[in-house]
């Protein structure tokens, strides 16, 4: 049975985990600064609406969602690889994680993309 270690030995995903980590940190900083620390006036639904209606911010949050999900799910997968030796179990876990990731990504997308003022 094939080893479910992401095709190669894992170099690519190890690297991407680091890159996504750094990018996420920056995105998170921007998100926190604009939303929580330096909002112009009080945070109101109208303001969030206005911001999230702009295509630039939509793209920002889609990237955020994609990278956040990748980073989190890959992290769980790495832990699973540490402790789960059986290929069949690895296959099941990887499958469940991918399905969960896909569902969450879809939920995120249908929230962010159609958002209109």
């Amino acid at each position: 049975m094939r080893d479910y270690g992401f095709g190669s030995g894992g170099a690519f995903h190890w690297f991407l985990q680091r890159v996504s980590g750094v990018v996420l940190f920056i995105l998170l900083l921007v998100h926190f600064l604009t939303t929580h620390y330096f909002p112009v006036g009080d945070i109101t639904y109208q303001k969030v609406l206005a911001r999230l209606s702009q295509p630039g911010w939509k793209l920002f949050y889609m990237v955020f969602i994609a990278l956040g999900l990748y980073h989190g799910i890959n992290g769980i997968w790495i832990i699973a690889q540490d402790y789960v030796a059986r290929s069949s179990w690895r296959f099941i876990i990887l499958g469940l994680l991918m399905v969960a990731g896909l569902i969450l990504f879809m939920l995120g997308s249908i929230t962010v993309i159609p958002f209109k003022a």
Partner: protein
Amino acid sequence: MPTRRFKIFRYNPHTDERPRYQEYEVQVPTGSTVLDALNEIKWTQDGTLTYRRSCRHGICGSCAMTINGANMLACEAQVHTLKRDPIVVEPLRSFPVIKDLVVDMDGFFDKLLLVKPYLIVKTPPPTDKERYQSPEDRKLLDGAYECILCGACTSSCPSFWADKEFLGPAALLKAYRFIFDTRDEGVQERLDVLDNKHGLWRCHTIFNCVEACPKGLNPTWAIGELKKKVISEKF
């Protein structure tokens, strides 16, 4: 002369159903090491106590064991520095116990062979001299060639506890020693073993190996360098 108590892990698979601990009292003159105490027990109190030792000065790597919970060489562990009483002596964790403090190191050495711990060269050597290694090139290997293969690092590694197939810090440090040897041309051959689900990526920089190494080496750092090397080779 001060007396110290030792609580020692005992297990004989032929007669014991499960491991047990046995206590001994030993007179320890100043300067005694744990190995001296074990010798004293074996030679004067209980000849059945089994452990490995050879050089008794920290170079053969046979006497690595867990002393008061930490991996060290029995021949280098000074009894007077060990505060806990009794001093608890156990075999290296996560290796199968053969008897008492003697563990099966076969898997450990098999993994060492997997990383091809020898110079791999493809170009013919110069006819009039040896392959050149400059002093700077030689310096790159400082901290990598001194490993005595005692197994203290691998046995202290939580990634190895979880995955017995994991190459472990000792084998990876050896891989570093050859991959970063400027005369070596075998990176590609070693890549599959390193970039593998039981290879480099199982190291999560926990640093236990650094703490355990009786030679003060830093396998975690070397593994980090190998990760960078593999990434740059592949992408």
